[in-house]
């Protein structure tokens, strides 16, 4: 399979010089800790990112919203269970209802599931331990705003860092998700095989990330915002943000 040299490929894309900057909102809950990483990732790509405090009732004018990782509310009761009732989540639900692009990462995935904006739920890692390591992701559906820029057969090497990252959905939900192309990414080996031993947390079918039926809300447990520069280990996460940016450009 062809592995594109990520940094070269991406720098080529960035040279296509589009003057307009898109505006990404990054939600901030008490206990979010990857909010800064999300802002960092967007800025590295030359666009704007703004924090949106959880008590805000309106998102303002944003092109897309990121729901970041961390331990919102200490993961008390269940990860994401309390954050989903924050005032800003009502605004987010409206934004999503109107077709706005939403990407959740890690705790963001947990919050979006708790809020019912995505199907399924995240439970304790099968190992019962926190897992922090780099994994390979294989893209299952390249025809979404979150995956359209990812080259065919491109594996993405990104870090995970979670204790409750095991994705669960019951049989009928999974069937429906599969038939609507809602499974976006799966854990794979370095050779691209989706195998049990590449699965770091026991997620059903090795699922790492999903989207809703309408295809505008997505989330994944791995951290693409922590893989946007080779200097810190990998730039492969940029493909996901590039996809969003490309989708926004196409929509203009």
């Amino acid at each position: 399979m062809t592995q594109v040299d990520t940094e070269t490929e991406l720098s080529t894309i960035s040279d296509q010089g589009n003057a307009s900057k898109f505006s990404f909102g990054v939600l901030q809950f008490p206990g979010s800790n990857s909010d800064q990483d999300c802002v960092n990732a967007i800025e590295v790509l030359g666009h704007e990112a703004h924090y949106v405090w959880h008590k805000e009732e309106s998102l303002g004018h944003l092109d897309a919203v990121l729901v970041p990782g961390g331990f919102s509310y200490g993961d008390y009761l269940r990860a994401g269970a309390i954050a989903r009732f924050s005032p800003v989540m009502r605004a987010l639900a409206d934004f999503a209802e109107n077709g706005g692009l939403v990407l959740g990462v890690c705790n963001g995935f947990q919050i979006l599931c708790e809020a019912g904006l995505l199907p399924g739920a995240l439970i304790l890692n099968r190992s019962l331990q926190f897992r922090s390591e780099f994994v390979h992701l294989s893209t299952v559906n390249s025809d979404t705003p979150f995956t359209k820029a990812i080259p065919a057969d491109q594996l993405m090497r990104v870090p995970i860092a979670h204790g409750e990252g095991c994705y669960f959905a019951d049989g009928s939900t999974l069937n429906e998700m599969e038939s609507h192309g809602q499974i976006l990414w799966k854990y794979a080996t370095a050779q691209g095989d989706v195998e049990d031993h590449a699965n770091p947390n026991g997620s059903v079918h090795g699922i790492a990330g999903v989207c809703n039926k309408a295809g505008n809300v997505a989330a994944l447990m791995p951290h693409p915002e922590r893989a946007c520069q080779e200097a810190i280990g990998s730039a492969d996460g940029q493909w996901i943000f590039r996809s969003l940016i490309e989708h926004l450009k196409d929509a203009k």
Partner: protein
Amino acid sequence: MMVPVRFEWQIMKVKIIITPKKAVLDPQGQAVLNALEHMGYDGVKDVHVGRFLELELSGDKASMESRIEEACHRFLSNPVIEDYRVEWEE
């Protein structure tokens, strides 16, 4: 027909027991089961690890009952992966 509404103001405790749905993998339950087996506790066939909440309430029992059910369903448990049951104590 007029149904008299009895408004009873009480102090109550409610216990909420939340358990993982049978269909959901319960690695914690598995780990505890294995440990018990290793420790020599024969006859333990299965273990499920869940959550326990105890709420102290004051108010009208009838309306509290439906409010608590709603809270359980909406917030205290996650219906995708959990079942719950409620035990009232006066």
